[in-house]
């Protein structure tokens, strides 16, 4: 077990292939990396380089063919599916490119959903603090279809933050937003993570955003080429 308490994430010799024979895709190919607690790390790379697959593996959404991932010293793939789901909702917050809000729930309900799934009590003040921070305090009763793209993504950010996870994984969170909103959202995300002392790992292929990160990891052909 990795014991370096400063490292929130350790990826060791991670392999994930898709297909076979001529169609074999080496999405993640013997990748090693470590990420420090409380830092903003950007993962960059060309389309098809394997960065999304890496992020999904880090988040425990998929299982690797080989290799291990430790989050806060825990080997996440040693966990069974249900244990992994519980681990995920406690330790990891996700933000996706296309928001993925639940259309039948209003903003407040979408945000407190992970707490509900974890049978945790909703501390109204904590949620209000997050809402205040992301500027959606007046939208709590709005339905997702009544929100703009930026508002939807802010809701998704709030949902990721509300459980106070150790690490937030964001998969091109601004990919569907205009440039003005894009900067707003990233700034917001960065400041939130800082305020709540969380680690942020974000996939992007936007240079400007990558420059805002504490650290940039470049992925090419399934390998981390520049850590």
């Amino acid at each position, binding site marked *: 077990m990795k014991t370096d308490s400063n490292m929130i994430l350790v990826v060791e010799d991670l392999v994930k292939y898709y297909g076979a024979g001529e169609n074999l895709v080496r999405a993640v190919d013997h990748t090693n990396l470590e990420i420090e607690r409380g830092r903003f790390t950007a993962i960059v790379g060309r389309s098809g380089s394997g960065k999304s697959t890496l992020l*999904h593996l880090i*988040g425990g*959404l*998929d299982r690797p063919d080989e290799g291990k991932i430790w989050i806060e010293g825990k080997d996440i793939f040693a966990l069974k*599916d*249900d244990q992994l*789901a*519980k681990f*995920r*909702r*406690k330790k990891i*917050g*996700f933000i*996706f490119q296309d928001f*993925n809000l*639940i*259309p*039948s*729930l*209003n903003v*407040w*309900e979408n945000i*407190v*959903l*992970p*707490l*509900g*799934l*974890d049978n945790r*009590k*909703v501390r*109204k003040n904590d949620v209000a603090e997050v809402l205040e921070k992301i500027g959606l305090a007046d939208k*709590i*009763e*709005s*339905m997702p*279809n*009544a929100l703009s793209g930026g508002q939807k993504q802010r809701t998704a950010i709030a*949902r*990721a933050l509300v*459980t106070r996870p150790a690490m937030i994984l964001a998969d091109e969170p601004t990919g569907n937003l205009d440039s003005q909103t894009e900067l707003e959202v990233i700034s917001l995300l960065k400041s939130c993570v800082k305020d709540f002392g969380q680690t942020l790992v974000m996939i992007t292929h936007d240079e400007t955003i990558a420059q805002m990160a504490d650290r940039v990891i470049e992925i090419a052909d399934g390998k981390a080429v520049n850590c």
Partner: protein
Amino acid sequence: MKMTTRIAFDNMKYYKSRNMLIGIAIVLTTMLLFVIPSVGKGMIDIQFAATNRLYPAWHALYRNVDEEIVRQLSVHHDISKYGLRSDAGYMKLEDASVGMLYVDQDGMELYKMELAEGSFPKQKDEIVVSQGILTELGQQGDIGDTVTVPYQIFRGGELDLAQQGEFRICGFLEDNDTNRKTRAYTALISEAFLKSEIPNEEIVYRFLLQIDDTDEPTTDEIEEKVKNIAEQFGVSEDDTNINQDYLMANYVDPVMLPAIVMIMAIIVLAGVITIYSIYYVSMNQRIQEFGRMKAIGAAKRQIRQVVLREGFCVAAFAVPVGLLAGTFVSKAVLSLFVHFMGGEDEYMKTIREVINSGEVSLYYWWAYVLAAAVTLCTIYISLIRPMHVASKISEVEAMRMQGAGKRSRSRRKGYEFITIGRLTRRNLLENKRKSTITILSMAVTGVFLMVVATVLSCANPTESANGTLVGQYEISPVIEENNKEHPERRWTEIQKDNPMDEPLKQQIEALAGVRRVDTFTIVKVTSEVFDEGDYQWINGVSREYAKELEKGITEGQITYEELKSGDKVIVDTAFLHWYPEVGIGDKLNLTVYDGDRAYEKEFEVAAIGDYRSGLTDAGYLIMAKEAADRLCENNSSGYFHVIADKNYDEELKEALSEIVDASGRIDMRIWKTEYETWKSAMTVTSGASYAFLGILAAISVMNLVNTMINSVHVRKKELGMMQAIGMSDSQLLRMLQLEGLFYTLGTLLISVGLGSLAGYPVFLYAKRNRIFNISTYHYPVTTAVTVSVVLLLLQILLAAGIGRSVKKASLIERIRFSE
């Protein structure tokens, strides 16, 4: 292949799971649509074939027709075939009855009589006999041998003095069990003999005829023609005899068709609701697809065609499977019917013979065509609305939609915190119409099932048998008011020498196992207010039933003591069925028949009551026995109700049967026989009804399967998303189960609730119309519990199955999934 057909075919393959569900619904619908008319027609054909074997083939016969009328009738354009019979007389024998008849060749055919060997008598001294006749005559002989026959000839309307003649045997008839048992036989003599013995002007014939059926008339039309011809030639109604059994067996009864059409309409309705509902629920998912097609130039008509052809592509696979399944099922159903239909009588034996001989084919080409055509119509009707919706989709709107339907509300108060239950509730509310349609479409079948189950559960063989008999055995004289062959069986004749006398009663009471014998009196009455030719019976009920009489009163009031006055009656509700205008306080002026005497008397309707048929025995004007006794000087005992210690006692039955057989003038009805009859009838009816309803239920369950699969399919990404943020597999399964539970409970609530409520009036209707002799309401607990358990189990399995199939795709695949 046309482009629209190509797209439709590809769509069918692409939306495999949904189309498989529709396919199953179509298979089941087609199967039912094939089985119902096939088995219906098969049963009728088998019964008809049996009837044809047992009954003569004439449509009608005219009695007492002289030679001149025969000549005129024989050229009538409506008569396609005729035969003649004339009764020359009887052989004079001690205990046997042997009629000597002249029957011509066509008459023989119409009577379905065939010579076992030899030829028809032509010469005056030729005769056709049977081995039974020879035994009765105490002689032996073969073809060509001479026998001596003592006989009496009908002359001037009566049997003349006995004479003796020598006859040469020219042929033999076969004896059957009935001949031997009743010792009643028929010998055939020649026309020459008939004419030599009876003067021409005194000879009367029975004119047997078949009506021309080239224009396929119904039974009613044939009867109408028979009556018209009789009227034209002055043949009285009494002299006209219509062969109802044969006509029923060979011509369509107008009542039959609507019954089959109604059952088929129910199947079509279930099919339409299910297929429509499956399309409706899945339509949102495909709005974008149709929008895209429109955007690239598909016309409305083409979109409609794509939807329609997709349905028909599924049908192209499902209909043949349904027909094939129906072919096997109908054969099995018929075998089961015959297996459960008890009875060892001649008719049932013949039915079994007909089935085993394969004489009736169960496979009618038109049933295949009909089932296929009606199924295709069902599919078309189900698709009208989906076609319309698909073709109306606006390109822009469709492209914008995320496949989750319109959401008009932009704000809504929410829960402070979210649980799995609340999450489920939100989703169901969001898809209110979808949920409602699923529940309603399943509930329609559920309500229907509960209503039928109510009637079936009220049909209890013991209660039905108790309803048809007062005691365990019912003994009554053989009464036949309209049998010209047996004028001695008219009630007024019986009254003069009634076999139901005190010694008989005492003889029965003395039998071991008999507790008591209750006598009911019957009095024949006619009235001007009755239909022409109709007569009714006053029923003198004995004191033991005073309480039952008073309890059964539904309108008005009268005590048993008051009924002793003799001028007041309770009218049974069945009487009002024919004479609805009769009411309480009405005075009925009746002609009372008492042997050779008839007199007028006025009776007041004091009350209306609802009684079991065993108590009334078609005597719907009820009064106290002692009052009814006073109406007649002759012995008017109509029923001995034997109250025995046990419901069935073989020894007592044998003893009573001996008494009945010895008398030859009385009949007996047995509780056990009634019980067995009801039991077997109800087993067959319930079995058939539940099998039918089970398949209908299976069709509608396809809705539940589709809605749940669809709800998961549409939300694949959403569910993946929820799992990404921490929903565990067990939480997902719980959510799916809660959703299924909602559909199940909704369906159960409406089915069982509304079905139970609707069942009661249907029970009252069945009771009023004496369907299955239903008398007491029984809630169909077993059906309600079975339906609930089956539906709940099904839903649990379904949720588990869907949960498993969801997990087949990795979380990543699900999150990436987009319509």
